[in-house]
């Protein structure tokens, strides 16, 4: 989740969408993102929209969250109308969704199933802190309908986990993956964070090996981002920790790509690697401009060129749901050019590549230059796509700045 919501236009209280957005609903893949804004402790690097019990304040509790989420799912149905709209993917993220009992998560899933129905073979993911699951709770999650688990492994090096303020014990994450497999989960992802101050090449190598050997079929690896206002940022500012070094981050990225590719996981997005068929369909929906509804405090949604985002604080969110009002804080209607720019900035990060027809003449010239500079693949270019090379992926944002001209 982004740390601060963007500015946008006012959103109507009944949540209604313009006819233009509703027009193609049902013809595009549709998914749900459910944001669970709770954590047991706050990690030092984290600026996500999540709250510990202490931070939550009066007027709202974890116990009432599932009811509110269910209410928003019903509202989604009212807004989208009676059209046939089977849900292809559900992604429950956080926060720490598994702080909710499997029954609560099951109730939320049930509401989606009741209101919309799940498409055959739907991908239903939840994020989990390795510490917050057991073999039994994983079984419970599988039972209520989850098909995919995503664990925050981050690192196997204790000193790195300490810098990140992560509480789980290093071995636990690997066990969690094994338990999830045993419980019948089809796909399991682990998240890794690299370039943490103090992390060595060997530390990260060990983390990569653990991820690969755990049996996960999907790995997301992120360079540590030091967000303003976090404890980590304060410690770096005070000189207690060195800052993240971009050159080190580049080395780690190459290390990740090499180790994961060797283990049979191919990159399909700048920060994501998977075995064939194990790509996260939900996330691909974001990158391909599909429709999704975002449930919960601060969640973002997109339907047919309209983006909106919910009020951030759980108390404000609860109040909206109790009043039977849309929780949307603001929204924006994307222009054709906005959508083209988004297409460029998202698709250039994908292994599918960016179709050259999304570019202006200038952009196509830039693309040709990127091929000459070894930042994009010649063969893909010949097929009419911009597909970044390994070095090009590390410079993807710079490429986007040039390509959107």
């Amino acid at each position: 989740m982004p740390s601060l919501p963007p500015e946008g236009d006012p959103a109507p209280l009944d949540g209604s969408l313009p006819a233009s957005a509703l027009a193609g609903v049902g013809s595009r893949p549709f998914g749900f993102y459910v944001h669970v804004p709770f954590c047991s402790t706050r990690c030092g690097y984290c600026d996500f929209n999540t709250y510990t019990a202490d931070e939550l304040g009066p007027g709202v509790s974890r116990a009432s969250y599932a009811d509110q989420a269910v209410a928003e799912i019903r509202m989604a149905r009212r807004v989208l109308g009676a059209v046939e709209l089977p849900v292809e993917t559900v992604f429950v993220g956080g926060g720490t969704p598994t702080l909710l009992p499997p029954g609560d998560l099951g109730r939320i899933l049930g509401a989606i199933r009741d209101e919309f129905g799940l498409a055959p073979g739907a991908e239903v993911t939840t994020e989990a802190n390795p510490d917050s699951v057991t073999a039994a709770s994983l079984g419970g999650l599988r039972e209520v309908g989850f098909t995919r688990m995503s664990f925050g492994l981050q690192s196997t090096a204790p000193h790195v986990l300490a810098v990140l303020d992560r509480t789980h014990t290093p071995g636990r994450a690997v066990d969690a993956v094994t338990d999830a497999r045993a419980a019948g989960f089809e796909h399991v992802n682990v998240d890794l964070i690299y370039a943490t101050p103090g992390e060595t090449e060997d530390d990260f190598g060990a983390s990569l090996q653990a991820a690969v050997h755990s049996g996960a079929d999907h790995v997301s690896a992120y360079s540590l981002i030091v967000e303003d206002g976090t404890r980590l940022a304060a410690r770096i500012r005070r000189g207690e920790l060195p800052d993240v070094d971009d050159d080190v981050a580049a080395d780690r990225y190459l290390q990740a790509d090499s180790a994961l590719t060797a283990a049979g996981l191919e990159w399909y997005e700048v920060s994501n690697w998977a075995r064939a068929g194990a790509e996260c369909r939900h996330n691909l929906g974001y990158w391909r401009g599909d429709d999704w509804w975002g449930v919960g405090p601060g969640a973002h949604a997109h339907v047919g060129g309209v983006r909106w985002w919910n009020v951030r604080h759980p108390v404000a969110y609860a109040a909206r749901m109790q009043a039977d009002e849309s929780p949307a804080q603001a929204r924006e209607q994307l222009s054709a050019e906005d959508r083209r720019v988004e297409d460029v900035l998202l698709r250039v990060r994908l292994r599918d590549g960016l179709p050259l027809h999304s570019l202006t003449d200038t952009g196509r010239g830039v693309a040709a230059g990127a091929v000459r500079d070894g930042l994009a693949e010649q063969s893909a270019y010949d097929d009419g796509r911009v597909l970044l090379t390994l070095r090009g992926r590390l410079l993807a944002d710079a490429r986007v700045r040039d390509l959107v001209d």
Partner: protein
Amino acid sequence: MANANAPVAGSTDPSVIRNFCIIAHIDHGKSTLADRMLQVTGVVDGRQMRAQYLDRMDIERERGITIKSQAVRLPFTSVDGTTYVLNMIDTPGHVDFTYEVSRSLAACEGAVLLVDAAQGIEAQTLANLYLALENDLAIIPVLNKIDLPAAQPDKYAAELARIIGCDPDDVLRVSAKSGLGVDAVLEAVVTQVPAPVGDADGPARAIIFDSVYDSYRGVVTYVRVIDGHLSTRERIAMMSTGAVHEMLEVGVISPEPVPSAGIGVGEVGYLITGVKDVRQSRVGDTVTSQRHGATEALGGYRDPKPMVFSGLYPLDGSDYPELRDALEKLQLNDAALVYEPETSVALGFGFRCGFLGLLHLEIVRERLEREFNLDLISTAPTVNYRVVMDDGSEVRVTNPSEFPGGKIAEVYEPMVRATVLAPSEYIGSIMELCQTRRGNLLGMDYLSEDRVELRYTLPLAEIVFDFFDALKSKTRGYASLDYEPTGELASELVKVDILLHGEAVDAFSSIVHKDKAYAYGVSMAGKLRELIPRQQFEVPIQAAIGARVIARETIRAIRKDVLAKCYGGDITRKRKLLEKQKEGKKRMKMVGRVEVPQEAFIAALSTDESAVAKPK
């Protein structure tokens, strides 16, 4: 409280006229003393009084300095019962305006030498005192601020007495702030300053000592009549150019303009002719009548000569027309300001401007920013070099990037004679500083037991850099500096170019002494390495003299420029960030293939800019 017995302008007997000025250092209380004189003589009452009454520009009031001079006619009834006309001619108080000071002095018969009793005489005051003595002015030494706890009137009275050659008891002691002793100063002006002497029946000759542009009235010219008489509705001629103007109004300032039928021998007043540009009415020029005019001008006129040059560029390139208009307007009121269009690869379109000195540069820049609302970048100040080629041809260089290649026989640089006054404990530090700035010691004198005057010749270029700041910091603010041009000298000067990825960046070229070229190259290359963001390729930064590289730094290629995460909630923010970056990219300057944010140029130049001497 106007004085009923005051003589009328235009028919004042020269024997009751006293023309004087106040020579003082910044902060020594000149404006306060002038304020007090306005009150004591009754030309301004307490109700109308405001601090620094005569300082017209905001900058003058804020900084407590006088940039432009002015003259006030003060009727004063002396203890002898006679009502005199005291014309107080305010003089600019800074080294850059020495020529203007000399013209003000030429309009006077006497000078009040005003010195802070806690600080003693300063270098610029000393220089102006010498000018006054050269002009045979009667000097009235006055110590101000004698009521300050830190005042040492006995010590500084002795110092002044030694410099002027008078008795320490002749030094008046005042507090301009409280008004104590101000009457005595006015009496001394009456008794010690000679009355003006001139040929009342001869052809009119008046010296211009100031010329000010007023948006309502056009140019207001301040003059002192030496011979004859100037009246309204006659045509007057400027003797340096022969230009003829209609005299629309003549009058005196007391302290607001009061029109009169004319002004006669010894009188000081203003003329309005309807011209719109001060360059048509130049300080130092002689005004005469068109009919039966004088044939011989008063001596001492010279064209203003710019000494210090800097490129001024609008931060936002689209402000270029506004900058051009603003310079045009400033020039109406500033005959010494010169400029011509200039283009820089790094900074775009701007103007190469010439100034009398550093303060002049700073004032012009500040007025452009303040009065015309412009954001400017200025390049490091430089001087006027004369380059003689092997074939005998000559090139004038005021912009280092125009320094010629090829066979150079000699390079001449302007020199100054600098005077530094400081407590004697700092002699060592000052000598060390002057030595590193290629100074040559001419002599040293003790003004008093613990105060010393050091005289040096120095290249002007060494002073315009950061000399004044360095001097102040080495002497904890106690040293004062004055300098005057003394011609030119052949020096071993070279041009150091700064190359970015093989392309010279014009704004950073500098003409330096060959012994300092390496230090300049290393420092500039190092600075730019910190300021220029990494590019997708390695960027060498080189400092070079001609084809010879003397220093090198490298900006390593950027390897990572990608945000790791981009999920559903990140897309809007990322698109908006991209829009912002596109705006930022438009402000990038391309040096070859290297994208340089304008901020980097500004930062690299601004460190030099801080070198511009700030009057304390």
